[in-house]
């Protein structure tokens, strides 16, 4: 008994810090969501207003596309890169470091650079495509309703796949050589090694990394906001940007808080379901 309370005493400073940095903002956001800007209780009025906004359902579907598209390609590309970087070839160290570049570049720098590269008139991408005659007219990558979201996802994939690659690579390197040798004695081909040795061994790494990617994609702002600000006509508006817009551009902190609370709920459910289905089944290999 005595010992336990001493323990609490020791963790108290850390708990207080956590409470200030996490619990207080969460509680305050919840409070903001049910009050008006004078601090009066208004019930669910803020929720009703923000749900009635035309942009809200658009942002919701965009967010789904954005998260799903980003994750699938980030994981697939990242795992393939990791398998490649795990092979023995000349210049491997160099390739490994170069792969990291997109991840190391600050998000805002990458976003602004891409925005310029993709510009219809000045962009190098259109220049490279039109100069050799591959296409006749420059493509409005960021102004065409059909291309703008895929382009955003592509930039996000480019930005984050190195992270997946490095994490999975670390997992691959911890696989004991015996497993490969055993597989080879049994006559496994390279792809069978990948499928039956590598992937099962790094499964937990992939699960954890994917969870991180989902969370990051869910509360992402930088790339999209810096390039399109959610436009054109809300084609790339995702919920975090809508929250940011409502709060800091529209000065409707209470509605933004209401949207945050709902978004928080959705995110918790997504993460919970994900952990339940994927992470726990990994316990019985």
């Amino acid at each position, binding site marked *: 008994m005595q010992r336990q309370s001493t323990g609490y005493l020791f963790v108290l400073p850390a708990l207080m810090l956590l409470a200030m*940095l996490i619990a207080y903002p*969460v509680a305050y956001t919840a409070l903001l969501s049910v009050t008006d800007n004078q601090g009066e209780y208004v019930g669910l009025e803020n929720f009703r207003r923000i749900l*009635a906004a*035309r942009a809200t359902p658009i942002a919701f579907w965009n967010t789904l596309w954005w998260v799903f598209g980003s994750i699938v390609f980030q994981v697939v590309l990242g795992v393939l890169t990791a398998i490649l970087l795990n092979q023995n070839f000349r210049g491997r160290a160099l390739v490994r470091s170069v792969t990291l570049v997109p991840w190391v570049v600050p998000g805002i720098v990458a976003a602004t650079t891409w925005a310029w590269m993709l*510009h219809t008139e000045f962009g190098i991408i259109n220049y490279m495509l039109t100069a050799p005659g591959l296409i006749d007219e420059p493509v409005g990558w960021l*102004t065409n*309703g059909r291309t703008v979201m895929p382009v955003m996802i592509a930039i996000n994939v480019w930005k984050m796949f190195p992270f997946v690659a490095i994490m999975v690579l670390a997992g691959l390197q911890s696989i004991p050589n015996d497993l490969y040798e055993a597989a080879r004695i049994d006559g496994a081909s390279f792809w069978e090694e990948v499928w039956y040795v590598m992937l099962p061994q790094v499964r937990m790494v992939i699960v954890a990394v994917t969870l991180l990617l989902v969370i990051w994609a869910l509360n992402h702002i930088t790339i999209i906001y810096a390039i399109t600000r959610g436009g054109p006509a809300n084609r790339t508006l995702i919920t975090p940007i809508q929250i940011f817009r*409502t709060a800091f551009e529209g000065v409707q*902190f209470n509605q933004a808080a209401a949207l945050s609370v709902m978004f928080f709920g959705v995110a918790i459910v997504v993460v919970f379901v994900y952990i339940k289905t994927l992470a726990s089944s990994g316990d019985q290999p």
Partner: protein
Amino acid sequence: MRMKTTALLSAAIAALSAGTAFAGEVTWWTPNFNEARAKTLVEKFQAANPGITVKLEVTTTDGLPQRVLTALQSGAAPDIVDVQHGWVNGYAQNKLVLPLDEVLKDREDYIPAALEYVTWDSKLWGIPYRIETHAVIFNKGDFTAAGLDPNKPPQTWDELVAAAEKLSTDGKSGFAITGGGEVGNTIFRSLPFMWMAGGGIISDDGKKVLVNSPESVKAVTFYTDFFKNKLSPASTLENDGTANRRLFIAEKVSMYQSGQFDVPSIKKENAKIDVGVMPIPHPEGSKTAAILGGWSLVVPSSAKNPEEAKTFIAFLAESDSQAVLTDTFPARISAMKAERFNDPILDVFKQMLPYGRPVPAHPRWVQISQAYFDGIQRILLGDEDAQKAMDGAAAEIESLL
């Protein structure tokens, strides 16, 4: 959640940096383009008022509204902030700034629209010191090449369209509109056309939606048709005012709307262009219009030394100070006499000032203008025609009033 953490964090940082305020010290946030001129004024003021020290903190315009708002909300704001006229009303309604009626002298010397901008609940919440409007900047060389007279620029909408059609040759665009970037870019360029036609986004009293009235739709059609008829660049949907200036400098655009601040950078970056300026063309039989833009000084409610701040603002509001501090034109009529405003290239911009109108003051103006802007983008994307897009915007705005 995220926003709250950000707010808290910036509050903490602001508290740390503001913790060193002493009695008699006034902290003034001014944008970087004001830095040199502000320094001169601070020195002049301190020489006359030895009891007050002014600490200048330079801000950047990018992201400034968010930064100012966070500082005001957190309660750890500086004593004086430079803000755009349009932001002041929102601050006043949320009790984030102090009324400044006692500071204002010579009320009749101010351009009325400028004071109207920063008035709410019949009190004055900011002291305007800088005003400006747009005009149309054009390339005189392109006019001559297209067989148009650069000394007789278009005056009406029809003439503007006809000129833009003639100028749109060899990959050049006659008249560049904006359809991207921050919402304000497109509001500043399209709302005046709606006013000229007798429409608007909302009524001045903020009670009626005008965005889908026949007059407004006519103006929106006029504006967006420049893109639909390929008189504005293919990149219109990603272009803001800065992008249009760059295209003008690259000689890809012959006419575009902007303020006088664009002229020096055009001359610096492409001296070959012979720059002309014309008033914004209007429909046959009606007057031109423009949005009055510019900057005001406000005192946050949480200022440490509001009295000293007011003394300093009173000094900055003097006619002589205004003539120095503004980057464009001063808000006081008497300050306009200063030598620096006599450049002939400024004549048209000066002529436009009396036609400048404030944007409607509404607590949800930012969301209203966003709803309108989304509608404009739907037209430019080809999703909807002008009437349908504006009906959609009207429904959205209706729920915000």
